[in-house]
């Protein structure tokens, strides 16, 4: 079972973990991405995430489906991503997977967050005390 969501509300990490509870799973692996207070040494005051919602949801679903193909023993997957304005320490993304044994849970969780960063249509703008930058936009 796969749960995908994109929300402008704070992510409930405990509720996300419940989504992947499974009697057949001996392992639940979670990645929680949070807002850091600096970027390349520059203090960050807040972030804004913008999403192309329909494509982001479609691509997130594909990433989860690919993980399920690669690790057929995956029991459940949940991927929840925030959008809108976030403050330092806020949760930006949660990836949670459950599997019978731990090795696959680490691998599948890492695959999902790494691939999400490459393909999912979400953009991040960092705000500093003296300006702002779209992350990764320029070489």
């Amino acid at each position, binding site marked *: 079972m796969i749960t995908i969501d994109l929300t402008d509300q704070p992510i409930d990490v405990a509720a996300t973990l419940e989504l992947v509870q499974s009697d057949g799973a001996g392992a639940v692996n979670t990645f929680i991405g949070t807002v850091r207070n600096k970027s390349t040494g520059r203090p960050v005051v807040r972030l804004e995430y913008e999403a*192309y919602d329909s*494509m982001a949801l479609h691509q997130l679903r594909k990433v989860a489906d690919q993980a399920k193909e690669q690790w057929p023993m995956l029991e459940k997957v949940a991927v929840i991503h925030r959008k809108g304005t976030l403050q330092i320490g806020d949760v930006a993304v949660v990836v949670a997977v459950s599997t019978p044994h731990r090795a696959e849970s680490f691998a599948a969780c890492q695959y999902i967050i790494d691939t999400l960063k490459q393909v999912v249509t979400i953009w*991040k703008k960092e705000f500093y005390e003296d300006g702002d930058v*779209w992350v*990764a*936009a320029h*070489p």
Partner: protein
Amino acid sequence: MNLKIALFGIAKEIVGQPMLEITAPADQPVQELLEQLRTQYPALRGLSSLAVAVNNEYAEGSQLLHERDEIALIPPVAGG
């Protein structure tokens, strides 16, 4: 044909609006649309990458565009 192109992130800032409506020859390939937009908005050339999405999928340069396609310009993504 008339195309509507959705814009996001820095591409939206460069163009100055969230949606662009342009007239293009029928069956225009994606790479020609990109070239047309880069000529019109040279700042797009400075981006690390610029993709086109058609109906929620990344499109190859040779893919032909159709009037009813949902088209979007995808500057470098930075989720997570």
